[in-house]
């Protein structure tokens, strides 16, 4: 008798969504067990997915980042040749302060100047001199700089680096330098007023509560659940919301996905149904349960495409 | 200060059984040790002890603390085997059988040579179970009735039965010190030993309990070969027929108790008995 519970693990960002789907899935399909959804981070999930084929291995890995070429390679090396990717929606990343703080209308360049270890002043890179937001831009509140950003172990950090720091870096017009140095200059945060949060968003929130001046980075869904204590900042003039992110107006968002082990489809009961259920209108679709939980939904055509690709056993490649 | 000389006398034998040296002659040799040496690691505790121990008599080992009395006693039932680092040399024969030979099962030996220790050490079980333990492990009783029989007769021989007959199910540790020691003797007897070794059996007891045990030893002598270690010369004089004096791991002198106490041959024995050493 083979295993009859779907095993899922991975990203803690996807975890709440996958858990909800798992729970509803079991409710909707009383003949299947509720899938087990473990955390462990995107890396952990993919690692387990790629350990091999067989009952003791994972069926689905949740991930907030794309599987890398080397990961895929290691998958293949372990006999996991059929990996199917499903993108089911987007995660918005918002900047928020305590409820009683000033209003922030941020631009990536503001954040870059607040965060980077070295910033250009008069065309030269110097150690970051700013201590107050209003020094960076007069439009920003007169408030000390203190930023809590996701730790390097978070997938969110990747988006943050790309969409905020790199974008801000470009806008800040750094002096000419080679690519590596440029990357280092853009992406190295200062240590005095920037903390990297390795834990989850509750930790960031705790940081904000202990330091009222702090600006923190949160997932949209987390912000949504804690609107009573958090005040969100606009980025490039756009207020983050399901609509603005889905429309692509809000710059800081990323796709969320999971990877299915093709070899287990049809062997572990319910995988196809789970995927279809996940991508259904009532779950990942606009107005579905996951949206209420903070997922930025993708269009229904996109979701249908994902499902079709999955059913056609299209394999993930890089 | 000669005024004090001779002021301490030992009048012994308040007990009634007596035995004169001639009688002792009849007793065959039960145990004989030849050139027994014991090392504890580097340290030599016994330097070649040779002694014959007669049947059905009490032999007392005396000597100052640390002279090796207990060590030698433990050789006789191979309790030294249980001490890490103890090495025994020489030969000890029980009824002509070498007790250190490879065929001999030490468990069987210990059933034949019982031991009573300095501090009463009853098991934390009922009085009955204390006495029944030995017969049980050795399979001495065919039935429950048999076992009852053994337990009761052993307790009786140890002079304890009357005192405890109504509370055989109570823990042995609840008895008084003297009773506990008698319980230990009963426990040893229950296995049906031929020899009983006693290592300072009264040193933890009060004078009254001591007197009772001494009387008991005197009775047991009729059926068992008894070896007793004592630190009290008075006690040795009271209960034993043979006395061996140890000093610094050597057997200095050995003979009839009366002779040893009245006419010690050796200077060291004399000194010890006169209270000049120890």
């Amino acid at each position, binding site marked *: *008798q*083979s295993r009859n519970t779907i095993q899922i693990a991975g*990203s*803690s*960002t996807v975890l709440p969504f996958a858990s909800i789907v798992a729970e509803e899935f079991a409710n909707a399909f009383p003949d299947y067990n509720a899938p087990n959804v473990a*955390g*462990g*981070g*995107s*890396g*952990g999930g*993919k*690692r387990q997915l*790629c350990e091999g*084929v*067989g009952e003791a291995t994972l069926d689905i890995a949740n*991930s*907030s*980042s794309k599987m*890398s*070429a*080397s*990961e895929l390679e*290691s998958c293949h090396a372990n*006999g996991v040749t059929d990996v199917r990717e499903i993108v089911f929606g987007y995660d918005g990343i918002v900047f928020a302060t305590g409820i009683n703080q000033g209003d922030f209308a941020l631009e990536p360049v503001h954040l870059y100047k607040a965060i980077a270890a070295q910033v250009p002043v008069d065309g030269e890179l110097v150690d970051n001199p700013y201590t107050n937001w209003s020094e960076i831009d007069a439009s920003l509140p007169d408030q000390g700089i203190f930023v809590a950003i996701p*730790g*390097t*172990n*978070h*997938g*969110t*950090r*990747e988006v943050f*680096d*790309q969409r905020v720091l790199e974008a801000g870096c470009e806008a800040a017009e750094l002096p000419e330098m080679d690519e*590596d140095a440029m*990357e*280092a200059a853009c*992406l*190295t945060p200062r*240590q005095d007023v920037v*903390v*990297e949060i*390795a*834990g989850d968003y509750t*930790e960031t929130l*705790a*940081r904000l*509560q*202990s*330091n009222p001046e702090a600006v923190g980075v949160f997932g949209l869904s987390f912000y949504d659940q804690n609107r009573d204590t958090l005040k969100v900042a606009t980025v490039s003039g756009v207020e983050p919301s399901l609509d603005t992110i889905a429309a692509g107006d809000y710059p800081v968002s990323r796709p969320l996905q999971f990877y299915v082990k093709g*070899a*287990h489809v*049809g*062997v572990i009961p319910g995988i196809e149904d789970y995927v279809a259920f996940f991508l259904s209108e009532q779950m990942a679709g606009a107005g579905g349960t996951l949206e209420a939980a903070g997922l930025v939904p993708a269009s229904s055509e996109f979701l249908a495409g994902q499902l079709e690709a999955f059913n056609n056993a299209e394999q993930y490649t890089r | 200060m000669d005024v004090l000389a001779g002021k301490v006398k030992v009048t012994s034998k308040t007990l009634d059984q007596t035995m004169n040296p001639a009688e002792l002659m009849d007793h065959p040799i039960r145990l004989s040790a030849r050139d027994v040496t014991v090392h504890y690691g580097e340290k030599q505790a016994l330097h070649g002890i040779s002694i014959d121990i007669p049947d059905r008599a009490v032999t007392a080992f005396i000597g100052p603390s640390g002279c090796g009395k207990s060590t030698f006693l433990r050789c006789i039932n191979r309790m030294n085997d249980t001490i890490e680092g103890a090495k025994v040399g020489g030969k000890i024969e029980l009824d002509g059988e070498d007790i250190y030979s490879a065929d001999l*099962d030490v*468990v069987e030996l210990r059933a034949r040579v019982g031991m009573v220790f300095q501090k009463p050490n009853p098991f934390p079980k009922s009085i009955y179970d204390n006495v029944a333990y030995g017969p049980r*492990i*050795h*399979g001495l009783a065919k039935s429950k009735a048999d076992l009852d029989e053994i337990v009761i007769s052993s307790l009786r021989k140890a002079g304890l039965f009357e005192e405890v007959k109504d509370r055989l199910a109570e823990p042995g540790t609840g008895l008084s010190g003297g009773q506990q020691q008698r319980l230990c003797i009963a426990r040893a007897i229950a296995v049906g030993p031929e020899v009983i070794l006693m290592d300072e059996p009264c040193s933890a007891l009060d004078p009254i309990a001591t007197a009772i045990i001494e009387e008991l030893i005197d009775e047991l002598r009729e059926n068992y070969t008894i070896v007793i270690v004592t630190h009290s010369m008075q006690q040795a004089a009271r209960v034993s027929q043979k006395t061996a004096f140890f000093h610094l791991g050597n057997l200095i002198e050995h003979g009839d108790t009366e002779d040893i106490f009245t006419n010690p041959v050796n200077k060291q024995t004399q000194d010890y008995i006169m209270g000049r050493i120890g």
Partner: protein
Amino acid sequence: MNALVIAALLLVLLTVSYQVGWSRSRKLADGKDTRLHSRPIYHGALAALFALLPAIVILGLWALFSQSVTNSFILAQLPAEVAQQQPFEVQAAVSRVQAIASGYGVIGEPTPMETAAASAYASFQQLSFLGVIAAAAALGAVGLFWAQRRIAPRLRARTEVEIFVRLALIACSTVAILTTLGIVLSLLSDALRFFSFISPLDFFFGTTWNPRFQSTGSGSAGEYGLLPLLWGTVMISIIAMLVAVPIGLMSAIYLSQYAHARVRSVVKPIIEILAGIPTIVYGFFALVTVGPFLSGLGDVIGINIRATSALTAGVVMGIMIIPFISSLSDDILGQVPRTMRDGSLGLGATQSETIRKVLLPAALPGVVGAVLLAVSRAIGETMIVVLAAGNSPVLRANPAEPTSTVTVSIVNQLTGDADFTSPQSLVAFALGLTLFAMTLLLNVLALYIVRKFREQYE
């Protein structure tokens, strides 16, 4: 059903062989005047061992190999194409046959091929099971026969049974060694893989911990200097000790030297409750209570203390360690002979002089050992730091700032979103190995000191 048959077989073997051994030896003793070396129960037990062990070995082998044997049998019944499929499809096909054979049925119409295979499989299953049972029983019987032939008055059955028992005991005590071995081996290979990316020199002596998030495809791997983590670990441990050692030691001293027996019997268990509280609870406690309290306190006295900081984690960890120190110190103070105390009191020293000048110096090695053991516990503590230290792996001296530790980094790097083949994840194993080596060193040192101390008074 199968399990029941097997259990029954073993039970029968057990009773029969025991009975045989028991009664035969008894008869020997009854008939003649010979004395048995061992009591009948030992002969019984020995016979049972002789009978059961071979049977169990056979059953164990079957348990190991039945899966693959069954699989290949079923595959042999199915067309050759099936076996050439992907392993998982093969497994699916096999499971279908098994499901049909079990009578539960499958969804959809089974093919005739499958039905045939299923019926063949069913009979194979029965036959093979019977065969195995028969083999086990036969071997058991052989063992029993041999055992009962050996029975003789002088057979040292007890000794043999005892040897077996001792072997079983030895087997149990190797588990601890295997555990250590397992730890080292399971950490080593991945740690080595990490060191193929990052040179050990950069790891052990680097002063920056910044394992960049490796953007897919991007080149730089970040910096993996151990020192900031190590420093965080050390700083938190020091703070914890600053809290725990005075409180723990003084409590132990007061309870063992001053307090009334009744006070002691109430207070001691209450303090020991602290040791039983899960560390996750401490973490929560630090996060919601201690952290905000400390930062509030900082505001009052004009120091900027972060709510999640080395200080918070250290203080809470200190609280956790108090009972550890106090009960160890209590033991150790108890081991200082009473004569030592009497000697000092007899000279006219006051109680506290006796404690400070005689007992403590005498117990010092032991207390140091205890503290070292506590330190190794502090170093290995994870959940409190995860929740309370604020994860900021930067080399800085101010304990009021957030910091990070080795353990936290293990959790973070391993449960994060990083690529699992990358040094970002693999570093966790190198960290684990370092941690293991550190605590090993501390422990060996502590044990050495404690043992030296014991020797002094034994």
